């Protein structure tokens, strides 16, 4: 009994922190419609600033708390709302989630940049060492304080949401934005209030949890993400149910830790130790099963700003040829170390490619691309241990099956809940499955002693998975150069397969599902089936990518597939264009190419920081950079074969000179950069010169893209605005509210 009381008290303290976190998350979502994946990262900022003030600077705890909760929290809320979230009007749910995921990646990178992650950070609780006795248990005064604060936050939050004028306005904005604006409510101020409350509670939770854990940005963010389960119990709208969810979460974690986590003497105890770490994930999964089916709703009057053009065979073939040729050309120039790093490029690119059909076409989000990739790598390593080529096929099929099974129970839910299920899946793999000790896989006829199959399985082989590179038709691909070229061919095959998919009836159905779920259902098609198909295809492609990625590394560890690394891939794909196949090349190049590490060897966080910076700017350009920025820049070049051919010929000449050691690799790299910068300029000039009347000194002006595309990617650029003003005789600054 004494033990039970102790576990219960521990559970209630944990539940209190979860309640603070989940209430803020629920309030922000209920009042802005944006699910803040970075909520845990905001809490991490609070914890680190609090540690800085109290431990490093020696401030009194109350003063540090006032700074964090009274200043840092509200300032973060205002900054996030005004700098990022305000630009998300008219974007779809996927884009909005991608922005907050980018924020999560960025904040973690930023924290690791500012505070050395290798340094041990300990925060002492206030009233350290003081305790009172309850039911024979010593309860630290700090724990009592945590529970009191959580209670107070719950009461204040409920009052704000249901009794205050601001709360009514916040809820009104979600119900009918136009109507509430017509009643004189400022949507900006209301959204700002929501974000201030949300981020302040996140920071408060970070401060409260700081003395209870070792400070690490990633694990702190993940710890706070556990509270998502409580929000799901509250269906992201009910504060009382959210608090109930927090209680379930805190208590189940404490009981699991107490009764199972420390008991290796239990049958299978060594396998259950890791399970304790994923209890919140289990709670989340269970809560998701009790959610009602996503309700079909008619479209909002607001028009979406996203485009989704069909890939052409010509375009895809160009992409494939360019990928293979450039890889074959670059590989001999690279130093052995750089070449080895680069072998991961096409594996990552294929994993990134897996997100295009799911995010870009079907409008569903999986935040676990690396989890599916890990499944593919494991299948390939265990079933094709000698690098048999069909290991790639098995990896794809196996991962597709896992994707289908994972998505099946959640396919009836909204994209947000499905995304949460995939996050839970990734965390469960990271923290439990990948770290299981070896076990015997036995298939036995029930109620008999007859064994059909018995195999000892060591999932990650003690933390380092042995993967051989394949042999194809007698060609040994174990060398870095040969493997890199082979991987680019697999990438090319994946691009062509997905192009065929997008142009097929299933591809059309995926787009239709994204465009109008209710329209989709009312033409007689089953949304769940298409959702599961999209997940299976995406997971299958990721599985193939994972097998390539693992084979590139040859001995990947579970950390190579961790949840946060997968988020960077996702953010880059969305930044470059989730519906564009070419975005995957960007992800591979950015995350695997050694250039950044070489140029900034001391700035390990530069890659995730840049990724995040691009991600949070998605609100300005929800169609991605390839479609909105890069393609218009290069359209002039594409229409001038002579110009393109000339440029490529010059580049080929420089390449041959580099290959013959006449000039250095850096010169070739410089030529490539110059090619990328100069060609679009020459293309634009050539277009203007041809379009202008002979002898005319003034080149003809035109819009940077078709009116349809421009209308979809508002706000317009200065050149386009100026062109439209001149065309329609509008005086700048008059009539458009500037």
């Amino acid at each position, binding site marked *: 009994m004494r033990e039970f009381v102790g576990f219960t008290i521990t559970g209630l303290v944990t539940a209190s922190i979860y309640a603070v976190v989940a209430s803020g998350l629920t309030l922000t979502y209920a009042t802005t419609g944006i699910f803040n994946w970075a909520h845990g990262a905001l809490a991490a900022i609070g914890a680190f600033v609090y540690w800085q003030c109290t431990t490093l600077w020696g401030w009194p705890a109350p003063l540090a708390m006032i700074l964090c909760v009274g200043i840092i929290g509200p300032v973060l809320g205002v900054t996030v709302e005004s700098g990022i979230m305000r630009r998300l009007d008219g974007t779809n749910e996927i884009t909005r989630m991608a922005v907050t995921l980018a924020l999560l990646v960025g904040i973690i990178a930023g924290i690791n940049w500012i505070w050395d992650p290798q340094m041990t950070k300990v925060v002492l609780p206030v009233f350290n060492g003081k305790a009172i006795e309850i039911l024979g248990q010593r309860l630290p005064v700090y724990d009592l304080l945590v529970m009191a604060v959580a209670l107070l936050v719950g009461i204040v939050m409920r009052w704000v949401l249901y009794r205050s004028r601001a709360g009514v306005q916040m809820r009104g904005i979600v119900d009918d934005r136009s109507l509430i604006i017509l009643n004189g409510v400022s949507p900006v101020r209301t959204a700002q209030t929501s974000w201030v409350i949300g981020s302040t509670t996140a920071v408060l939770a970070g401060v409260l949890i700081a003395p209870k854990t070792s400070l690490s940005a990633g694990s702190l963010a993940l710890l706070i993400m556990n509270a998502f389960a409580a929000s799901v119990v509250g269906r992201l709208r009910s504060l009382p149910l959210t608090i109930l969810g927090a209680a379930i979460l805190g208590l189940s974690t404490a009981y699991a830790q107490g009764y199972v986590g420390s008991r290796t003497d239990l049958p299978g105890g060594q396998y259950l130790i890791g399970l304790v770490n994923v209890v919140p994930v289990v709670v989340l999964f269970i809560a998701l099963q009790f959610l009602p089916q996503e309700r079909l709703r008619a479209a909002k009057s607001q*028009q979406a700003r996203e485009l989704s053009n069909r890939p052409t065979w010509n375009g895809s073939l160009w992409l494939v040829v360019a990928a293979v040729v450039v890889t074959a050309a670059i590989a001999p120039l690279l130093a052995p170390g750089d070449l080895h790093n680069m072998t991961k490029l096409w594996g990552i690119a294929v994993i990134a490619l897996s997100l295009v059909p799911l995010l870009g076409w079907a409008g569903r989000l999986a935040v676990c691309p690396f989890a599916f990739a890990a499944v593919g790598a494991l299948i390939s390593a265990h079933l094709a241990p000698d690098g048999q080529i069909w290991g790639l096929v098995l990896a794809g099929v196996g991962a597709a099956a896992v994707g289908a099974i994972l998505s099946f129970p959640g396919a009836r839910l909204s994209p947000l809940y499905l995304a949460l299920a995939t996050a839970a899946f990734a965390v469960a793999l990271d923290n439990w499955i990948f770290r299981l000790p070896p076990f015997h896989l036995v298939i036995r006829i029930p109620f008999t002693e007859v064994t059909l199959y018995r195999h000892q399985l060591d999932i990650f082989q003690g933390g380092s998975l042995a993967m051989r590179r394949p042999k194809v038709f007698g060609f040994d691909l174990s060398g870095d150069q040969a493997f890199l070229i082979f991987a680019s061919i697999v990438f090319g095959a994946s691009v062509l397969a997905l192009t065929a998919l997008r142009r097929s*009836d299933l591809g*059309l159905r995926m*787009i*239709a599902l994204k465009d109008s779920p*209710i329209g989709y259902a*009312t033409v007689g*098609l*089953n949304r769940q089936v298409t959702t599961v198909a999209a997940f299976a295809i995406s997971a299958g492609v990721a599985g193939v990518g994972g097998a390539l990625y693992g084979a590139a590394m040859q001995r990947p560890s579970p950390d190579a597939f961790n949840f946060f690394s997968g988020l960077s891939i996702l953010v880059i794909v969305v930044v470059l264009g989730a519906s564009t196949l070419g975005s995957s090349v960007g992800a591979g190049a950015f995350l695997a190419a050694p250039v950044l590490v070489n140029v900034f060897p001391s700035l390990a966080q530069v890659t995730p920081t840049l990724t995040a910076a691009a991600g949070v700017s998605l609100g300005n350009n929800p169609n991605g950079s390839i479609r909105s920025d890069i393609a218009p820049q290069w359209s002039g070049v594409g229409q001038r074969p002579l110009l393109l051919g000339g440029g490529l010929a010059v580049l080929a000449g420089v390449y041959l000179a580099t290959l013959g050691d006449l000039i250095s690799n850096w010169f070739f790299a410089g030529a490539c950069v110059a090619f990328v910068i100069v060609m679009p300029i020459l293309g634009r000039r050539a277009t203007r010169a041809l379009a202008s009347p002979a002898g005319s000194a003034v080149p003809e002006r035109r819009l940077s893209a078709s009116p349809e595309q421009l209308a979809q990617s508002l706000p317009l650029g200065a050149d386009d605005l100026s062109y439209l003003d001149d065309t329609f005789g509008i005086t700048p600054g008059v009539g458009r509210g500037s």
Partner: protein
Amino acid sequence: MDLEVTDVTVRFGGNTVLSDVGLDAVSGGITSLIGPNGAGKTTLFNVITGVLKPTSGRVMLGTNDMTSMPVHKRVRLGLGRTFQRLELFGTLTVEENLRVAASAIPRERRTSEVQRVIQQLRLQQVSDVRADTLSTGTGRLVELARALVGEPSLLLLDEPASGQNDSETRVFSEVLVDLADRGMTILLVEHDMNLVMAISHRIHVLDFGQLIASGSPAEIRSDVRVQAAYLGQESLEVGSGRRRSDVSTGAHP
């Protein structure tokens, strides 16, 4: 196939949106459902389509009880629907919109069915145009075309004339009369009284979630409850001459 709705009640919390509504729509006829804004017309459509589960009541199509069927199964049984606000697949072309709808019919019939509907609604000129760039009127035609793929036996049309100009409405009404003549069951929600009175065989009137009248256009015009609840006594007196003369031309018996 005939549609029969029996004692349908829909409650959202303590708010009763539909109360024991019962109506029918027979094959080969155009049945209209009218009522002031907020009367519950679209809610009833959502119940018939399966988008919304009723608190109680039953929905039958022919001899099939559809009450607890998911939306896509009702459509496969022969139900087609258009929406008050366009629900086209905006980033797809008109033809692709119809191809998606044709996915639910046997593969060998898909191409011919898409072409048949494009010709039937004279959409050849816009078949390669992206749906979200169409005018509202053309968009409504495309939505109707999409619902007609696979030749449904029951067609639910939610305010199909809104956003259409006079000539588009005329084409639309001709198409509806033609479809009904071929034996299709059509249930129409519409605020354009000229259109409703001109083409309907039977009209049901909803007010505050209750069915207050059913009958022929002539019976509905003269029903005092309808005049009081829906048309309004005063406005009826002011505009009665014009409205009645318009209605009399081309109305079905």
